[in-house]
């Protein structure tokens, strides 16, 4: 250990003298690793993270060596994968909630390696950061569009698993839609998978048959978009731009823009300025973005743009009272916005007006 420290000190002094001559390029690239839950070709969650990794590669060039490992199950295997990576990397991004405890365990054993865990909340050692995005702000924007664009006043929502992030999305979309269209109804179908194109398509067809003319998805495949295109209804993409799968159906997609964050964090490791942080960025910080608005009249698009500007400026909050919970009990008073913790982070209830039974 002491030996390694010594060599790294020697390396560092050697490096700095070299830097003095060459004028600043990194001689020793940062080794960054990304652990993915799905295949990079899912066009959803993992795809978006992989785009972020690509941005790191593009911007830092020779200054970074990137390792990616896909389809890592959220079980005890992930601890081994993260350990393997920790032996050879400087910073590791574990991009799914289920990697939380494995990340924490490995981080305790590799204090010199930096860990970045997406969507989690545990930072027991000072070499772990957590990060996530306020996707519900994106849902707020598409909820408004949906409220304006529907003729049947029924939104069909394809949901994956009942975790706080998905619940937040449903509530935010519903409230926003209701704010512009008081007659709005939301039909929710849980498919209990993040990626099963067949099942997602079946769910989309069922929702459309029940009168939904706008499909929202919180699953990862492009299947719901293709079904919307086929059935002649409208739909929103998820995690990446899905225009290509529904040229006539696509309204916009909520895009997970992880790239700038990843670039900043890898740079921080290179500079030696990395510290343990908790990031929960949204539209204002550019972590939640939108694909081009298509298939909607200009007024709707302007309203959406205005909403984005308001979010940018921090002038609106998707959860602004008065809001009651589904059972009628009060949640937020007039003008009140909820605290991040526990209300938003742990959200486990529907708001008033959603008819579906909460899945528990």
């Amino acid at each position, binding site marked *: 250990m002491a030996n390694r420290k010594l060599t790294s000190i020697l390396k560092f002094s050697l490096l700095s003298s070299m830097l003095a001559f060459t004028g600043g390029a990194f001689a020793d690239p940062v080794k960054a690793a990304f652990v993915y839950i799905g295949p*990079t070709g899912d066009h959803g969650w993992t795809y978006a993270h992989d785009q972020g990794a690509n941005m790191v590669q593009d911007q830092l060039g020779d200054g970074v060596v990137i390792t990616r490992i896909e389809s890592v199950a959220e079980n005890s*295997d992930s601890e081994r994968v993260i*350990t393997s990576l920790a032996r050879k990397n400087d910073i590791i991004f574990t991009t799914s909630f289920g990697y939380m405890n494995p990340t924490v365990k490995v981080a305790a054993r590799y204090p010199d390696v930096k860990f970045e865990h997406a969507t989690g909340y545990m930072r027991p050692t000072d070499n772990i950061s957590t990060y996530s995005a306020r996707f519900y702000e994106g849902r707020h924007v598409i909820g408004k569009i949906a409220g304006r664009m529907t003729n049947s006043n029924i939104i069909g929502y394809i949901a994956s698993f009942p975790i706080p992030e998905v619940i937040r999305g449903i509530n935010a979309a519903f409230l926003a839609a209701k704010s512009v269209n008081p007659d709005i109804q939301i039909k929710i179908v849980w498919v209990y998978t993040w990626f099963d194109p067949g099942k997602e398509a079946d769910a989309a067809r069922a929702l459309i048959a029940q009168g939904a003319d706008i499909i929202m998805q919180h699953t990862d495949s492009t299947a719901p978009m293709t079904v919307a295109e086929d059935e002649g209804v409208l739909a929103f993409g998820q995690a990446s731009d899905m225009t290509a799968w529904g040229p006539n159906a696509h309204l916009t997609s909520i895009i997970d823009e992880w790239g700038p964050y990843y670039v900043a964090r890898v740079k921080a490791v290179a500079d030696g300025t990395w510290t343990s942080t908790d990031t929960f960025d949204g539209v204002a910080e550019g972590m939640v973005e939108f694909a081009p608005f298509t298939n909607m009249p200009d007024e709707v698009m302007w309203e959406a743009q205005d909403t984005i500007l308001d979010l940018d400026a921090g002038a609106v909050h998707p959860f602004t009272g008065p809001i009651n919970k589904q059972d009628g009990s009060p949640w937020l008073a007039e003008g009140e916005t909820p605290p991040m913790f526990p209300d938003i982070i742990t959200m486990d209830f529907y708001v008033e007006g959603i008819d579906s039974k909460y899945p*528990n």
Partner: protein
Amino acid sequence: MIRLIPRTQPSKAMIFLSPLLALTLTAVTAFFIFAFILTDIEVSSVFYTLFVEPLIDTYYISELLVKAAPLIMIALGLSIGFRAGVWNIGAEGQYVIGGITGGAVGLYFYNVEGFWLIPLMSLAAILGGMFYAGIAAFLKTKYQVNEILVTLMLTYVAVLFLSAMLQGPMRNPSGFNFPESRPFHDSALLPIIWQGTRLNIGLIIAVILSFVTWFGIKRHLSGLQIKITGSAPRAAKFAGFDDKKTIWFALLISGGVAGLAGLFEVIGPAGQITPGLPQFYGFTAIIVAFLSRLHPIAIIFSSLLIALTYIGGENVQIYFNLPSSITNIFQGMLLFYFLACDVLIQYKIVFFKTIRQKL
């Protein structure tokens, strides 16, 4: 064309040579695949990562053993059933249920410590797995409903049930409403037998079970019964053995062991109950059982081999930025070769030409 001539008795030499031949053939095929498809990668280092590093690096050795333990246990139980002609292909479901019932006991006594805790949890896990496999036994003996269908369908039900449990009663009260249980305390976790690694006492239990099964099959009457029923159902009936009892016995044993393996995953490497509990062990164990020709001691080695393909394959992805599909292709290929070479133990291969010459 080729022709297989049965040997009068299994070739001792081939028992050892056929795995080596299979490895060689896999290596040669993999060499061509890597050399032609992945042009910018040095093939020898891919091989080192796949076959050598997991066997010489102490960390990966420990992980090999961690990964092999549940496979040994489940495959043992299944091999007993397969000998009896009972097709439990839903060990995955029994494994999940065992994890739930055993884990539930641990969560109930969350604030209690005691030497009795793990044995009690184990009992609950075994009973849970037995109950779940018992449904198939009941339907098979009472209504002649085929156990393949019942165990397979119940696997999907078990996974959904796990989701419902983690969404409801088993959810960690301080876990921000994510579907995970509380992490277990030390007294509910399996003791580590190799400090600094995740290797726990589960491996020792798995190995002991292998030997117990071996002796059991050799000596015990029910072992005999199972042997007879499996190879010829009618013969067994004539010999006075009860078909129904055999079905119950085979399913309860395989279900109980799978349930225990599920708990050992939960209070072993995982340390908590998560939606990631089902991980195809129940299906992989079927491959293990047949690779070992249902022999309890051979199961240990087959499990290690399969574990090697997981860990080697994983590291190839990490070191060479290859897609995860490479692991599946490689596993499939290795299995094909192992199964094919296995034929040499029981048969001699003769080419048609030679036969004609002999005639």
